[in-house]
């Protein structure tokens, strides 16, 4: 794209761009996806790229991320080689069914789509939305373009992503791992739309790993919609491990039916700017929603977790624990909204956000928001922003541990509370190691890479 006006308004730039490539977007896409495009685009035009005046984006300035002259991956490019051959996940003994998304496009060639139990689907959204549109539209979309300009933009531009379907009663023994790889020869913008359907009584562990190759500016704006049927269980791990010139905006929507259990883990290990929107709608009684997040930032990195939990039905439990470690000039934000609707009695909703600032220059914004319209509920929220406990540090040193080691122990202890909630054991151990490396100031990549220390 090349609209180069001096100080051109970015939103206008993207509006013009959409019009320019509209045909390309519609081409080859399913009716379902195309049906939403124009309306979503209008919605984006109305809202624009969020500025800090937008209450929900108060702590994150997205504009610099949208400034580069990106190339877009509107049509599929496949790598010659099998991605499984060139990209190795370094989590030992993680028995997963592996799939790849390459620059926003699901790679059927490199994915083990036929190694799943009968009825389970792991495929590209593009093809599912053409071949089984009735399956895709089984659930009404949760991602409302009017509510968020990034969702609007995603809906307008999305052509592919992954589609995961676990039918009623099927319990997957192995986790599904989706490696989301960005690799461009120049600055690149990807838009990905994903769906995860876990039907009644089914069970799924899903691991989504975001990686980037090459040192370009990347922007990824993805939306994932998740439906979890009654009595079903989902563990959803999101590992964000890119580089400092990567912006990762991921909006995840989860709807739960009665007696279901969903746990999300958002581990932001590396990235220039990360914005995670996570919205839960507890739409049946006795649901349990656990939302964990951790981030480790240095340099000028920025992570913003924006969560919303809607308790729409009685007797549900939600539990949020987010921890951030901020070094150097990094910045972070956490905004968590809990909404208990009028009849959602006996709701238990907990939220905690703890932040460790390692320097005077690092900053953290944290903002809980409770909207409670029922009377018989238990809600709590707490946030702390602090430094390493000096008393504890002295205690460790007084026993012979040097200062660096004592600090490391304290930081690991801080993160440990979140890490221990990872139920996938090899992943937990690997994350433990990665976090330890990260906290030691080493580059913690969960795969081999040849970059220098500055990526």
């Amino acid at each position, binding site marked *: 794209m090349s609209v180069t006006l001096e100080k051109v308004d970015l939103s206008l730039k993207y509006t013009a761009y959409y019009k320019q490539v509209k045909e390309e977007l519609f081409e080859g896409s399913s009716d379902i996806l195309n049906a939403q495009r124009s309306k979503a685009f209008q919605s984006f035009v109305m809202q624009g790229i969020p500025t800090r005046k937008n209450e929900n984006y108060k702590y994150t300035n997205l504009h610099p991320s949208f400034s580069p002259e990106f190339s877009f991956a509107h049509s599929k490019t496949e790598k010659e080689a099998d991605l499984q051959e060139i990209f190795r996940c370094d989590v030992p003994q993680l028995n997963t069914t592996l799939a790849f998304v390459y620059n926003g496009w699901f790679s059927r060639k490199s994915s083990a789509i036929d190694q799943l139990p009968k009825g389970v689907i792991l495929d590209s959204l593009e093809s599912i939305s053409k071949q089984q549109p009735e399956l895709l539209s089984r659930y009404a979309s949760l991602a409302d373009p009017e509510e968020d300009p990034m969702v609007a933009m995603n809906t307008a531009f999305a052509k592919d992503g992954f589609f995961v379907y676990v039918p009623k009663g099927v319990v997957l023994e192995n986790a599904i791992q989706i490696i989301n790889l960005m690799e461009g020869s120049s600055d690149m913008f990807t838009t990905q739309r994903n769906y995860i359907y876990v039907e009644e009584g089914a069970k799924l562990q899903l691991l989504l790993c975001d990686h980037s190759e090459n040192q370009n500016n990347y922007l990824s704006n993805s939306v994932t919609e998740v439906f979890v049927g009654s009595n079903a269980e989902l563990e959803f791990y999101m590992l964000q491990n890119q580089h400092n010139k990567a912006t990762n905006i991921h909006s995840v929507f989860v709807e739960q039916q009665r007696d279901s259990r969903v746990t999300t883990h958002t581990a932001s290990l590396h990235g220039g700017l990360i914005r995670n929107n996570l919205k839960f709608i507890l739409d049946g009684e006795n649901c349990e929603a656990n939302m964990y997040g951790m981030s480790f930032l240095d340099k000028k990195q920025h992570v913003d977790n924006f969560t919303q939990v809607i308790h729409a039905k009685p007797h549900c439990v939600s539990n949020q624990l987010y921890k951030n470690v901020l070094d150097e000039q990094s910045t972070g934000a956490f905004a968590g909204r809990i909404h208990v609707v009028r009849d959602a009695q006996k709701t238990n909703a907990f939220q905690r956000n703890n932040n460790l600032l390692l320097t005077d220059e690092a900053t953290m914004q944290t903002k809980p928001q409770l909207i409670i319209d029922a009377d018989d509920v238990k809600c709590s929220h707490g946030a702390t922003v602090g430094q390493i406990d000096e008393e504890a540090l*002295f*205690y460790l040193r*007084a*026993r*012979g*541990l*040097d200062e660096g080691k004592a600090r490391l*122990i*304290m930081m*690991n202890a801080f993160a440990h509370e979140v890490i221990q909630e990872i139920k996938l054991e090899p992943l937990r151990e690997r994350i433990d190691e990665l976090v330890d490396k990260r906290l030691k100031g080493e580059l913690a990549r969960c795969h081999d890479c040849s970059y220098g220390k500055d990526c």
Partner: protein
Amino acid sequence: MLSIKDLYVSIEGMEILKGINLEVKPGEIHAIMGPNGSGKSTLASVLAGKEEYEVTSGEVLFEGENLLEKAPEERAKEGLFLSFQYPVEIPGVPMVNFLKSAVNEHRKYKGEKELTAGEFLKLMREKMDMVDMHPNLTNRSVNEGFSGGEKKKNEIFQMALLEPKLAILDETDSGLDIDALKTVANGVNALRSPERSAIVVTHYQRLLDYIVPDYVHILYKGKIVKTAGKELALELEEKGYDWIKTENAN
């Protein structure tokens, strides 16, 4: 072993220690007593290397070397141990990992081979028996959820593991029942040797029945105002501190 000369210490501009002199020779046990707020814990913390205290003048030699310029961990590895008056709870740091690191840091410093996990566990069990620590406690995070007595025992347990040359016990006996008190005393006495010394800060004569001091000092308003043999502790037990306060009122 330890030689404190005319030590002045302030915190936040407030002078707390006002010219402390103290000589501890190898094998000796010194008791320090004195009313609350006299500066006993301040003295202990300064010796262990707590940074927020400012030494405005004076010097401290530990085995002939300038102690005050060393980092807390260096002091620890050279054989100085502080049993904290208020041991710190450190959630998320498992006791076992912490203790193993501590022991191995000491060993490395002395040029000894680090202990394997198995060797360490064996050593740990041995010392745990000695101080009568409940085995469950080592499965927890450092001091987390420990009762007051358990925290104090944990200090002595760590002392037993690290075998310091100079142990400073800051009110380790406060709040302990008589059995726990004996355990603490046994821990200290087990380490007694002609080379090792201890400074025992206490309010109570009863601990000194078990750990018999060579000297008893009274610290009052930042100064050692009286030094005598173990009989001074008995006298304090009987008469309280009022006479000290009167003698030093000005």
